[in-house]
């Protein structure tokens, strides 16, 4: 009753896909629909209609070789890995046909055939699993969630919502920007940042409870005029921020006069 098609692009219907029609005598050669030589082998193997572990690998090898031969005769473009597989299967075929070597190096033809059959079996198992997965009972397709949930926030362990993907992408994007050759380097060292000024002011706040000139808060290791001006500007901005936060008081008795500050906490103590 249910429409189980779903998730596929129209041209890759799962069911319809695997085996293009072939006549008994000549293979209709069409490499288009296949994803690599293993895919073709599996399609050919299915024609034998037995458990893949009991399949005749010799027959399979011959079919594949005929398939490739036909493709070459038709001068079709054949990717290298199809040819490598053909070479390997020809090698396997010879190993299977020749009498068992006494102590040949490497696996015997029989062993190789078994391993190939098992590999095909693995691929087939995954094909089947994929099909079952998509034809299963999917949430959102076969079983619906409530259409208008009022919403309960799941209680999470963290208050910030961030997925691993977002994190990885942030880093990658950053790395990309960084990857530009000869990036511009800002001369940061000479600048005394507002953040640094804030940190410094906050640390010193308790130690200077009485009105004191703001200049007393400037770092004392400044040498060049640029650094000093930068520190003055940043410290003033930082003091305004602290006043705004209620941590500090600020006064200036005359225009262009010295700016004085003191800790606001002091007042509460009184």
């Amino acid at each position, binding site marked *: *009753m*249910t*429409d189980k098609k*779903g*998730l*596929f*692009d129209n041209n*890759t219907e*799962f069911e319809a*896909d695997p085996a293009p029609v072939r006549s008994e005598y000549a293979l209709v050669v069409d490499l288009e629909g296949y*994803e*690599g*030589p*293993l*895919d073709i082998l599996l399609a050919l193997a299915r024609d034998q209609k037995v458990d893949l572990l009991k399949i005749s690998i010799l027959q399979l090898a011959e079919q594949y070789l005929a398939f490739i031969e036909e493709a070459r005769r038709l001068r079709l473009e054949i990717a*290298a*890995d199809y040819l*490598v*597989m053909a*070479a*390997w299967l020809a*090698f396997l075929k010879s190993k299977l046909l020749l009498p068992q070597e006494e102590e040949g190096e490497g696996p015997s033809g029989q062993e*190789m055939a078994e*391993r*190939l059959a*098992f*590999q095909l*079996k*693995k*691929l087939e*198992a*995954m*094909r*089947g*699993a*994929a099909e*079952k*997965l*998509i034809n*299963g*009972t*999917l*949430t*959102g*397709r*076969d*079983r*619906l*969630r*409530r*259409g208008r*949930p*009022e*919403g*309960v926030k*799941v*209680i999470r362990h963290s208050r910030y919502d961030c997925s*691993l*993907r977002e994190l*990885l992408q942030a880093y990658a994007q950053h790395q990309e920007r960084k990857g530009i050759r000869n990036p511009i380097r800002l001369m940061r060292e000479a600048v005394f940042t507002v953040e640094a000024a804030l940190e410094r002011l906050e640390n010193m706040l308790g130690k200077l409870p009485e009105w004191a000139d703001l200049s007393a808060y400037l770092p004392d290791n400044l040498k060049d005029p640029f650094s000093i001006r930068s520190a003055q500007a940043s410290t003033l901005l930082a003091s305004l921020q602290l006043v705004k936060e209620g941590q500090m008081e600020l006064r200036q008795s005359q225009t262009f006069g010295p700016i004085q500050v003191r800790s606001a906490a002091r007042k509460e103590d009184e």
Partner: protein
Amino acid sequence: MSINPDHVRMAEALLFAAKEPLDEISIAARLPDDADVPAILEHLQKSYEHKGINLSRLAGKWAFLTAPDLSWLLSDEREQERKLSRAGLETLAIIAYHQPVTRAEIEEIRGVGLSRGVMDVLFDAGWIRPRGRRRTPGRPVTYGTTEEFLIHFGLDDVRDLPGFDEMKASGLLNTEPSGLFDDIPGLGDTTHDPEEEED
């Protein structure tokens, strides 16, 4: 022991209102301390068993969902479906059944290289995630599925994947490389030790 009917009502309201499946801890956190959450959930599950909506367990969490036999009725309400290519679906299945699995192992099973977009689509859908690294030379990243995958495919646990136990028992889920094409130059370069995982 009897269950407090008020607690049942609360759990019912929470589960109905939730936008995503809720785990027992989240439910318990909202109910009074003496609420027996597992018993309440069992009770609810039973009482909705034959209704048009059922209480289901997905990815170890709980959610009310419409009964599967009624899906034909609800076609208008269906969520937008994601179109997956065959390669995408096969790759997803391989990751689900073989996790943690490396990219090279996926390629080995499929017998073809993984084209670029495939993993991207699965990652975008929120169905796969990096899981760890294989303790082999190069320490390749391994991938696995997410909770969202389980929820979407209606599974409570990875072990509930169709045929998982049988496949596992018959060795079909070993990621060990076949070593088949090693003798042939060009094909045998996917050699890596099937050593253990640090996940």
